[in-house]
């Protein structure tokens, strides 16, 4: 079975690095971490991921438009944010998962498993 690919966008480099390691250790392939929307968008257009973990506020703006495009293609999105309360994000994206920063690695992996349906 092919390894699912996860797109990671996070503009705080240490946090992005940690996210990538966390997800890779759990057996997934990672695209990223991307520090801005344009590079995340570029990667997504070249190669559709199976899931995305997105910080809500990236260095060049808000990630919601990218999230909308991903969800339009049925790619599940996990928001990872310190800026927004989970219920605010939830109102806008009822189907999404939201994790509050800082989030324990185990919770991130659990959310990834849940979102991918295993």
């Amino acid at each position, binding site marked *: 079975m092919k390894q699912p690919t996860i797109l990671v966008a996070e503009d*705080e480099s*240490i*946090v992005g*690095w*940690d996210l990538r390691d966390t997800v890779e250790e759990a057996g997934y392939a990672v695209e990223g971490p991307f520090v801005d929307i344009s590079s995340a968008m570029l990667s997504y257009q070249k190669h559709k991921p199976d899931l995305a973990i997105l910080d809500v506020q990236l260095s060049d703006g808000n990630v919601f438009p990218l999230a909308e495009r991903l969800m339009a293609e049925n790619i599940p999105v996990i928001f990872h944010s*310190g*800026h927004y309360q989970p219920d605010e994000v939830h109102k806008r994206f009822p189907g999404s998962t939201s994790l509050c920063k*800082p989030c*324990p*690695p185990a919770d991130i992996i659990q959310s990834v498993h849940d979102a991918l349906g295993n």
Partner: protein
Amino acid sequence: MRDDSDPRPTRPAQTYTAFDEPSDRLGVEHAADAFPGSPGMLFKQAMAQTRMSICLTDPHLPDNPIVFANRAFRELTGYRDDELIGRNCRFLQGPKTDPAPVAAMREALANEDVVIVEMLNYRKDGSTFWNALHLGPIYDETGKLAYFFGSQWDVTDLRVARAEEQHARMMARELSHRMKNMFAVISGIVNVTGRMRGVEREAAEINDRIQALGRAYETTLDDAASGTIEIGNAIHAILDPYGRKGAPLELRGNGARVPFSVVSIVGLVLHELAANATKYGAWASDTGSVTVDWNSPEPDETLVIEWRERGGPAIDPDAVAAGTGSAIVDRILRTASGTIERKWNPEGFEAIVSIPLRG
């Protein structure tokens, strides 16, 4: 109906300045209104005395001019009576007045509606104020439109306060964002370093503590201005994730307030108690539950937290004591001159934590 023998001399048309007597100006000429206590008298006195700015306009005259303005109106705007009687109120508007409320007033007046608008107005000396204006029609006894009344309220200070409050909220939000971010970065450093050195388990343990602290601090932002914080919010935030994972938890403390410096102690101590409950105690079994109670028996003196486990497996105190968690709790409390009393009762583990609130 003026008595011809009225000894008062007829006033020349332009000498309104010294008067604050609408009945004269509005031609209230019914004899009954001249008696003290009559509606006309009451109106006169109320108008003269109120600190609320009021003006009346006559819609039957060209361009709906002011026919009466009370003292408060003159004090608010800086104009004398002879400078304002006969003019339409729009002379109070200026270049920075938003056209939207002006249009709203125009429409309300056309429909004889009551309206409240807020807009920038200009005084005679050119200075500006925010005017919360209440406009409405006044009908005569036959139901015909007689006047419009306007009541002006200077809300400049209020708007400043409102803006400051909004600014404070924005700052709190930004601060909260930065704080979460900082905790996320710290966690990241610990995780990444832990992996590089091959000590992931230790890193995870450290991170659990950092995250409990982060949750506790987060709740203190709302109280940032008041110096003390309600510790219950922090306790909820620290323990909520355990509750959410299905661990039965009852929090029943009161609204005790404590100095900010106590938060980190409470955060670390409760985290260790919760971690032990998960590993060895009530939360290690499906039937166990935890109750946490807190109060400040002598306010400003001590904070007491009672941790009570029920229904868990029998605990081996030595196994618990061997973990680093207990050592950290003891050490922190000792530094803060606090105490912890642990009891391994047959019905479950109990801890009474006492933290002094004075430095």
